């Protein structure tokens, strides 16, 4: 047993932290948001050069292997750097599902291009009214010879408007509320019958609503088994949740550092605010909660690559539920301790706060994951 980073992992962490010290933060974020598509293709190419887009992709498909811990390290650095790139959607969710579910020909056609930075992928599993319950997918996939035709509505597909392909969860059998009958497909975003609406999110990322009207999908584009896609879907979503929790840890750490810096510099009553014990103790709580969250995040990052799916699901639920609670505390306290400046768009703190807040709403909120833990057998 050893719960420290390996030499290789430390190299990844140091490189990522160095990169985002230069190329991260709210100013860069604002500039990237303003670009067409809401993200920066040069930055994406830089990610590819550093090998970050090849992480988790098997070497036979142009990847460099590596797993949950390495990806979590990057996501934590991206959180600190307030990155707006479609990393989670492409690498964390969709490429992982392709790696683990696609037939070899499809994997060989898609994954090397992802690793090279040529292909952005999205992940469209959510539907209106579904909240966080994966078995509530209602989008229909009707067999048509060997192929399928998809009809339904998908919401909040991350960077769906920038992606070339997207994973779609649809129902080949059964009814909403049943785990059986789900199938994952990899579809082209410009497929006939697909209408896409690209939009911003409140935390300054991009997402898309997809309306599918009898969209044809060939059989070669099926990921995993027909009717049996719930396992693959929930494993992908759990992996994404662990990675989001890693991003949240980076955001929280940045908020702790930023608030420490602000309190040292801001003077009231002829003293720096950092001299007030009431404020010191609140910052201490922010720090403690961040560290506890980080411990759970890396436990989850280790477990999602392990051979015990129940332990993995439990670890992810614990990490994500903790992220929800700690993220609220750290975000709200950071804004409060910044005083009036904290509620302006000018200060960095608000941008971190917004992203941190919306991470709780994504891929299972605190209530959802607590419910999972409570429902699991003892």
């Amino acid at each position, binding site marked *: *047993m*050893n*719960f*420290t*980073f*390996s030499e290789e*992992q430390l190299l990844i962490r140091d490189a990522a932290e160095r990169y985002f010290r230069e190329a991260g933060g709210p100013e860069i974020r604002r500039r990237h948001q303003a670009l067409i598509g809401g993200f920066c293709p040069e930055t994406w190419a830089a990610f590819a050069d550093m090998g970050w887009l090849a992480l988790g992709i098997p070497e036979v498909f142009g990847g460099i292997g590596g797993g949950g*811990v390495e990806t979590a390290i990057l996501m934590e650095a991206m959180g600190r750097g307030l990155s707006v790139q479609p990393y989670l959607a492409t690498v964390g969710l969709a490429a992982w599902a392709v790696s683990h579910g696609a037939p070899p020909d499809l994997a060989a056609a898609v994954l090397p291009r992802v690793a090279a930075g040529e292909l952005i992928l999205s992940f469209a599993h959510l539907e209106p009214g579904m909240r966080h319950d994966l078995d509530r997918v209602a989008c229909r996939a009707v067999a048509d010879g060997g192929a399928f035709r998809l009809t339904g509505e998908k919401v909040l597909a991350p960077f769906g408007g920038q992606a070339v392909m997207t994973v779609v969860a649809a129902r080949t059998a059964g009814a909403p509320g049943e785990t059986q009958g789900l199938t994952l497909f990899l579809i082209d975003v410009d497929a006939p019958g697909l209408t896409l609406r690209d939009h911003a999110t409140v935390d300054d990322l991009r997402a898309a609503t997809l309306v599918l009207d009898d969209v044809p999908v060939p059989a070669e584009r099926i990921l995993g088994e027909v009717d049996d896609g719930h396992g693959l879907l929930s494993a992908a979503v759990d992996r994404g949740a662990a990675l989001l929790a890693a991003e949240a840890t980076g955001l929280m750490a940045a908020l*702790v550092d930023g608030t*420490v810096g602000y*309190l*040292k510099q801001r003077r009231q009553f002829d003293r720096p605010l*950092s*001299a007030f*014990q009431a404020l*010191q*103790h609140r*910052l*201490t*709580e922010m*720090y*403690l909660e961040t*560290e*506890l*969250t980080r*411990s*759970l995040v*890396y*436990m989850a*990052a*280790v*477990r999602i690559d*392990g051979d015990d799916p129940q332990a993995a699901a439990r670890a992810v639920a*614990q990490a994500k*539920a*903790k992220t929800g609670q700690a993220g609220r505390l750290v975000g709200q306290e950071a804004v409060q301790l910044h005083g009036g400046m904290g509620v302006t768009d000018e200060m960095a703190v608000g941008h971190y706060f917004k992203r941190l807040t919306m991470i709780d709403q994504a891929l299972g909120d605190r209530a959802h994951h*607590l*419910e999972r*833990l*409570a*429902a699991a057998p*003892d």
Partner: protein
Amino acid sequence: MDLTLTAEERAFRAEVRAFLRANIPAETKRKVDLGLPLVKDDYVVWQKILYARGWIAPTWPKEHGGPGWSPIQRYLFDEELAAASSPRLITFGLKMLGPVLIEFGTEAQKARFLPRILASDDWWCQGYSEPGAGSDLAALTTRAVPDDDDYIVNGQKTWTTLAQYADWMFCLVRTSNEAKKQAGISFLLIDMTTPGVTVRPIRMLDGGVEINDVFLEDVRVPKENLVGAENDGWTVAKFLLTRERFGIAGVARSKVQMARVRDIAAKELKGGCPLIEDARFRERLAEVEIDLTALEMTELRLLSEEAAGRPPGPESSILKLKGTEVQQAITELLLDACGINGHALDPDLIDGLARTDGANLVPLVPEHAATVAGHYFNWRKASIYGGSNEVQRNIIAKAILGL
């Protein structure tokens, strides 16, 4: 990063588990399982068993009688101790004074005291707090005045845990008022049988006696019992406090207590069904388990750092602070799980009399509920002792956040 045990670690755990389970005295185990009060012999007999096996002082260097275990092996040993229903090992000699003497003691002091600490022949207590020196420990006023080869000590110590059993007390005393208050403190070893030492028990909220006042009146202490230099006791005290904080997280014991919560919740009813099936109660369990797991993983991070040659500094304050918060949250779960069954006071049951004298064959409350309220009341101490959690926050603010 690897959270699975190596083959060697699994073998080590199996060996420890087999020995502890085979050798823990049955009556001691029963008392620990039910949270019943322990007496001196319960501790000493068990510690001597561990001593005979060579496992009594996992943190000590091998040349002084430690087993030479890695940080991960120490963690596994703690897990197995708790799982075997071991009483808490009395820390004053083993975890506090022992390491202090190894670091600061003279050869004569080491030779005289260390073997008796290992063998549990001496019971040590800690003379730190005073009526006017709690969190502000350096404000202590107990005086030690040189007199030939002795010091004459006068003053009062308080909150002295299990002093009623103690043969010896390590004590902070004031030897100078010249410089700033931290600079005039010395670290002294006092024989509790010395004339002028009086121990007065203080009854706690659960009715038990574990803390005491210790009055020191013209107590003659040989100068050879000074540890470290005169007026340099603060250095020794700080070293000891960081030791005290490590392991204070109590993760292994909290895991066992969580299992106890589940057991009790399976016996208690709500709406005619076992409480353990209640969704809201289960979410509360899940929340506490999240923080307990986070604490365990944080401890593993720090232990792994230590194994890689980077011993923890002020980060150990995280473990004290969050560890005691989790422990207290579990005492609340135990109290709430027992509900009205925890309300009646049944001293016979707590003292174990119900089984022996026949006069009270019908216990007032279920056995599992007898001590939960007392335990809850008693355990409010955890966030106060060992440097109160507010003091830990001050340490983190200053030493980690640089405020």
